[in-house]
């Protein structure tokens, strides 16, 4: 393990930024932190988490896939892909770091999504262990340890500085490059910090939330549960939960006529939208009930079904804080867990 003194944090950023683009949480002026590109003077925000998740780095809200030149009867397909530049994301929390595994399961399985892979290969993730989790946090429910996040490099805030640990080759390369700023250290301070965090985690209101009643193989049991009706009743059908969610990965492919060619781009889509599955002659998910159910069944049943029991939620709590009508996955899980034969 390596140590960075408190005073040298900015030097670390400068050193990284000299090599490659560095993104870290910065207060955006509305009391929320968002990932922002570091430049001299940028102040790292220690806020618990960013408003938007870190998935944008690998799965941006919109991205161009290709272009078409159309002339008369002719169509030319233009591959606009370019090799991505190396970059570092600093300060990713355990939940978001875990979300990358979930996205990988989708985008890196055959056929590989080359747009995603390109970014993933060139991005180095530096995680930051949590110190002050909030009431909306429940990453522990999905076996994620907020005190020991994954990532290429893990970082802990300790009393007199930061302790860093490289977890991967990419991480080691990063630390090696800034070695001049670091000193060797043992894991005592880290353990103390972790204990403190874990003690708080245990006191959180959602600490006891379990995955009992949901998970792999429960499609038949859960699909027709009557509670879906009341759970989905107030849902506005907006995309807030999906768009702030670090694991939601549905997308739409659209064409845009620029006047001198067709740009085909993809953008985030939401299974909560009424037109998500709409076809020329009907919609298999006719009402918000079906759409609402799809989102939670996907995270809690279908995804685990197809991914060895891994849940499609990391407990970051963003949807809890952001849903306009305060309906969320925790309420769904608790309702489903309560009496399965209502």
């Amino acid at each position: 393990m390596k140590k960075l003194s408190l005073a040298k944090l900015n030097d670390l950023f400068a050193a990284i930024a000299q090599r490659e683009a560095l993104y870290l949480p910065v207060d955006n002026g509305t009391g929320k932190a968002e990932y922002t590109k570091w430049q001299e003077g940028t102040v790292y925000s220690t806020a618990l988490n960013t408003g938007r998740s870190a998935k944008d780095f690998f799965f941006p809200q919109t991205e161009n896939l290709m272009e078409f030149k159309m002339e008369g009867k002719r169509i030319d397909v233009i591959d606009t892909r370019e090799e991505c530049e190396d970059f570092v994301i600093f300060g990713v929390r355990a939940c978001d770091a875990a979300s990358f595994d979930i996205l990988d399961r989708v985008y890196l399985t055959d056929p590989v999504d080359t747009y995603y892979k390109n970014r993933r290969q060139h991005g180095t993730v530096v995680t930051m262990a949590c110190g002050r989790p909030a009431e909306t946090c429940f990453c522990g429910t999905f076996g994620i340890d907020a005190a020991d996040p994954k990532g290429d490099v893990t970082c802990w805030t300790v009393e007199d500085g930061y302790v860093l640990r490289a977890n991967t080759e990419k991480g080691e390369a990063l630390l090696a490059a800034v070695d001049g700023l670091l000193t060797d250290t043992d894991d005592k301070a880290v353990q103390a910090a972790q204990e403190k965090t874990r003690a708080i985690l245990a006191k959180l209101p959602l600490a006891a939330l379990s995955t009992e009643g949901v998970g792999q193989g429960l499609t038949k049991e859960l699909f027709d549960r009557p509670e879906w009706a009341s759970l989905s009743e107030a849902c506005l059908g907006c995309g807030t939960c999906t768009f702030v969610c670090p694991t939601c990965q549905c997308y739409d492919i659209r064409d845009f006529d620029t006047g001198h060619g067709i740009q085909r781009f993809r953008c985030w889509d939401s299974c909560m939208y009424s037109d998500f599955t709409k076809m020329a002659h009907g919609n298999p998910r006719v009402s918000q009930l079906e759409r609402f159910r799809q989102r939670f069944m996907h995270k809690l049943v279908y995804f685990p079904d197809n991914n060895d029991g891994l849940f499609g939620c990391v407990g970051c709590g963003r949807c809890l804080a952001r849903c306009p009508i305060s309906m969320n996955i925790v309420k769904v899980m608790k309702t489903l867990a309560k009496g399965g034969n209502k």
Partner: protein
Amino acid sequence: MQRIGVFICHCGTNIAGTVDVKAVAEALSHEAGVVFSTDYQYMCSESGQQLMREAIREHRLTGIVVGSCSPRMHEATFRKAAAAEGLNSYMVEIANLREHVSWIHKDMKEATEKAIILGRAAIAKVHLNAPLQAGESPVTKRALVIGGGIAGIQTALDIAEAGFEVDIVEKSPTIGGKMAQLDKTFPTLDCAACILTPKMVDAAQHEKITIYAYSELEAVKGYIGNFKAQIRRKARFVDETKCTGCGICTEKCPMKKAPNEFNMGFDKRGAVYIPFAQAVPKVATIDADYCLMLKNGKCGICSKVCGAGAIDYKQQDEIIEREYGAIVAATGFNPIDAKVYGEYGYGTCPDVVTSLELERLMNAAGPTNGTLLRPSDKEHPHTVVFVQCVGSRCTETDERGKPYCSKICCMYTAKHAMLIREKYPDTDVYVFYIDVRTPGKNFDEFYRRAVEQYGVHYIKGMVGKVTQNGKQLRVQASDLLAGEQLHINADLVVLATAIEPDKTARSIGTMLTASMDTNDFFTEAHPKLRPVESPTAGIFLSGVCQGPKDIPETVSQASACAAKVIGVLAKDKLTCNPCVASSDELLCNGCSSCEKVCPYGAITYTDKEFRGPNRTTLIRRVASVNPAVCQGCGACTVACPSGAMDLKGFTNKQIMAEVDAICK
């Protein structure tokens, strides 16, 4: 994907002179969907249309783009040609390469580029065009003529003769208009009353004509074939049906202080009056501004003397509603107020009069019984000076006058001069003019008679000032040809004041939604080819309300106008404009935003059943548009937030496609 044919017209050299038509046709041939592109000398000619028709057949065209003159000119021509070949007329779009390109741009390269862009926009639109079918609407077989002057009377008579009912609405107590006030008429010098009054009587007696005199148009709704008009019948305080026109009341009325409008205020009339002997309808009218009974309830003499019991002091304005298939504006004119030209002394010197006032001073039925006397001292004038173009043909900077030529002044002044010289050969007559304009049959001969036979002094020059000089008027003027200043001591000065549309024309134009020019003359649908129609369908123009004209011209225009009206009324059904709004019921949420902005009340709402999820039925309120009532303005399409309301022929997507093509 449409199969589009592009036809670029040279319009002789009108377009081809500035636009490289071959290059345009070539460039547009590469646009998606264009399967045929060519240029031709005159697309609107028979052979041009033939070329288009052959191309439609040969290339199985589904859409046409013509690059030519304005669609306001030949859109209909090309639509007809397409329809003749079985292609829906509304699959034709025009790129305006003449009025909007070749005629305004000089640089060949730039004009050609612009022409190509406009062509692309038209192609982009045609791609989204859909065949449209015109609906039909019924025609109310009655016409309304607004104004009862010679124009209105002639139009009404002609329409009535063709067998259709006509209503004349006249704001004054009698029809007849300005012509009734005239003495003699040029160039034949027959007396105005002699030729006008029989027509007035004809109108009054015609079974198809109803005259609403002393009435004003209140409101008009509807559209061609189906207008609804509200007419205010102002209270005459005399029952028209009972009054015999005997005139006893007018004689006995003790209140004799009302200025007599008919005689231009030179004499007085009673509070109850008949404007002139030949008035139609010949009924008395009580002037509420002067009637003692109406003002303070004391008098009532007319009521007592009226044998027919026609006087009704309690009469109220009445509003009647009538339906019409066509409306004619024949609102006429007035001379401008000459007081604004203070330098001519009008209003301050009593012996400075206007030409229309002179008409009354010379008329046998006028205040002087036809003897020309000065207003000031009732003496014979020995020197008369006429001033031409008072308020006509003014430059833009002169805010008092009109930019146009009033057209009739040269001729009536020649007439006046001639008549004075004939009746009173001892009188010297001077005419100061800028130009003498005498185009018209026998006009120039008439003018030359005035100069050569009657010895009228025509002086090219301007009158600078007229001042009172004792009993006489001192006229300062310049003789441009002699290059000298003149001072003339005159007994009478006559101003040939400009004429302007009647003040009521503006509000009537607004009611009729008929457009007007800056001078408040009604705009014709086309200055040359459709001179008697307003651009608003079903509204026609008769007489001076469209522009200055003399009596023969007015009468011929009035008849032309009647012919156009008859053309509408003769039809049992009119083809509607298919470019109307329509609502997509699947998108409409029945919020009523569209209804609020529809000027025609064409939108109504119904509760309809729709299929909901899981075989349920939903009842929703949705808008529907009556295509016969909708005129296609599109106000509703913007009021509609969901985009349910769209306008056929000008759909959101079509307009956006044009925008895209233009901005590309």
